[in-house]
């Protein structure tokens, strides 16, 4: 490639990423220039401005680009698939920033500048993971997200829990990275290229040419490694400890943005590279031979997540196990693979984003007020602040999958596709574990409405957090009533040709 070629690309389609990079750099310099005692809240608002600006350019790309646009042999590509996930990441980080401003007032985090720009670099990593079709850039994006979040988890330097949880996160993350990289090295070895579309062809050649075992080994390594980011079985053990030790806005970030980024990469990598494998009989190996394993991972995540959540008294740990179960649900469309796969996943992730951020906003308020993360701190919440209690009820109902919420519709779509593809045992596990999950979700609701609290004083409700709670509650409710609007929007703007959001069609 010539230097001239680099300038021949239209770089304006990459503005969302470049803006985040620019703001992260500017924030790190500003942080150096600011005095030690200056209030860093202004950095949060600057970061939020950057995130919103970047969101605007994602929308511009959505409107102006009709076909995927590829940079440097798909090292980065702008397509419907990436745009949909980028919007999810950006709204997630916007919520995280608003919650962080409130959280900072507790004064536990002394390095606030680092907190804000690491959040932006983590976002950048997530965006690269969603919009790359090359092993090298995917890996670098994954690590940019991981390294930033390791530090974010441990930013409460004086807290023993935070130190411990971030160290556990680094160690389990490092092992998972090694697994992913080892799997990628086999993929590269069999294909001789890091481009996913070329790999898809060459892996299917290798599969037919007597290297089937190595291809499957690569698949297994990559799945094991990436199950860490989505906190699914077998790499789920870190989640409860890390969620408990991290600052609450960061817990929400890990539960939603980091997990969504993991899914973006799982889908892109596994579809991109392994969709072409054909068995001797002519059927698709991914759909016939590999999807049962994905189903097992999904079912195991649902069962372990939901049953372990039952015995937690710490609400953050409970949310971690609930998150493991949710990861299992989001793997269902991947295991069943209908032509609506992309819409189903994005819809479920959207519903999950709304409910999780709302719930973590409430969690943060209650923990701050009660100085405790136990289930009992929710006692009597309805009498202290009816608005917050009702909103929390909507979030919990959505996560549990009860009608008139976005979560119900999301689960319903997954359930229908599992039935239609004759995955009966998987749908049975879905139903059974959902019923189990009612028990612990309703445990919080019981505390809020039926248990007397230690105090009747109204719960203080800062404006930013109130905004997040009201917005997410309304959206959860409205999307639950008119899900078709969101579904149509995803179909119209991200996925015109049923090719998994422009993911499987190379632009060449």
């Amino acid at each position, binding site marked *: 490639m010539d230097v001239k070629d680099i300038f021949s690309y239209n770089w304006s389609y990459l503005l969302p990423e470049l803006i985040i990079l620019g703001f992260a750099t500017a924030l790190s310099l500003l942080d150096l220039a600011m005095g030690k005692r200056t209030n860093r809240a202004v950095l949060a608002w600057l970061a939020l401005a950057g995130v919103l600006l970047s969101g605007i350019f994602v929308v511009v790309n959505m409107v102006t680009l009709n076909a995927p646009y590829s940079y440097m042999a798909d090292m980065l590509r702008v397509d419907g698939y990436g745009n949909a996930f980028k919007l999810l990441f950006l709204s997630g980080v916007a919520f995280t920033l608003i919650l962080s401003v409130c959280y900072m007032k507790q004064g536990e985090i002394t390095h606030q500048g680092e907190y804000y720009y690491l959040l932006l670099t983590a976002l950048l990593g997530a965006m690269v993971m969603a919009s790359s079709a090359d092993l090298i850039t995917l890996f670098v994006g994954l690590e940019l997200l991981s390294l930033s979040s390791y530090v974010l988890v441990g930013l409460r330097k004086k807290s023993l*829990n935070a130190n411990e949880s971030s160290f*556990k996160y680094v160690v389990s993350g*490092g092992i998972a990275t090694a697994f992913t990289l080892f799997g990628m*090295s086999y993929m590269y070895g*069999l294909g001789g290229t890091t481009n996913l579309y070329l790999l898809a062809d060459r892996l299917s050649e290798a599969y037919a040419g007597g290297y089937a075992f190595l291809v499957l080994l690569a698949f297994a390594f990559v799945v094991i490694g990436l199950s860490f980011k989505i906190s699914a079985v077998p790499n789920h053990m870190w989640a409860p400890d890390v969620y408990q030790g991290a600052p609450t806005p960061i817990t929400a970030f890990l539960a939603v943005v980091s997990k969504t980024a993991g899914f973006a990469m799982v889908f892109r990598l596994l579809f991109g590279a392994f969709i072409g494998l054909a068995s001797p009989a002519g059927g698709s190996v991914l759909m016939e031979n590999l999807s049962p394993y994905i189903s097992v991972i999904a079912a195991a995540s649902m069962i372990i997540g939901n049953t372990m959540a039952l015995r937690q008294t710490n609400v953050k740990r409970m949310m971690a196990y609930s998150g493991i179960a949710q990861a299992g649900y989001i793997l269902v469309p991947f295991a069943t693979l209908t032509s609506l796969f992309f819409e189903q996943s994005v819809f479920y992730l959207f519903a999950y984003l709304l409910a999780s951020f709302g719930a973590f906003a409430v969690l943060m308020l209650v923990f701050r007020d009660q100085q405790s993360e136990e289930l009992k701190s929710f006692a009597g919440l309805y009498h202290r602040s009816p608005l917050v209690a009702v909103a929390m009820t909507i979030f919990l109902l959505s996560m549990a999958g009860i009608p008139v919420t976005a979560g119900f519709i999301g689960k319903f779509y997954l359930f229908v596709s599992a039935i239609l593809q004759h995955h009966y045992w998987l749908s049975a596990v879905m139903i059974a574990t959902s019923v189990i999950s009612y028990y612990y979700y309703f445990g919080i609701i019981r505390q809020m409405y039926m248990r007397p609290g230690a105090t009747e004083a109204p719960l203080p409700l800062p404006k930013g957090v109130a905004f997040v709670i009201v917005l997410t509650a309304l959206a959860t409710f409205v999307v639950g009533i008119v899900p078709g609007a969101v579904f149509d929007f995803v179909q119209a703007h991200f996925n015109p040709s049923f090719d998994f959001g422009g993911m499987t069609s190379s632009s060449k």
Partner: protein
Amino acid sequence: MMTLQLPSFLLVALILFSVGLYGALTKRNAVIVLLSIELMLNAANINLVAFAKYGLHAAITGQIFTLFSMTVAAAEVAVGLAILIALYRNRATVNIDEMDTMKH
């Protein structure tokens, strides 16, 4: 003259990976655990470089990938050690067994 074949490289990498995994899962000293993770990452690097020369479609890309993964591994261990130092300041231990304040 006997030349080294691809399987020898892959075998070394696989052994290194397994040794690293064993160390990461069983060792009590946190620094050794971080070292073991480095072993696992470097095992993947050996694979990449070997495949770049002897792979099915030998190409230079593997060596480029190695450059990236080495950088990332260095950053990872730097972050890991920084967090370990913060932990050591509060707890005065690097023993993994004693990091159990959140057990349930």
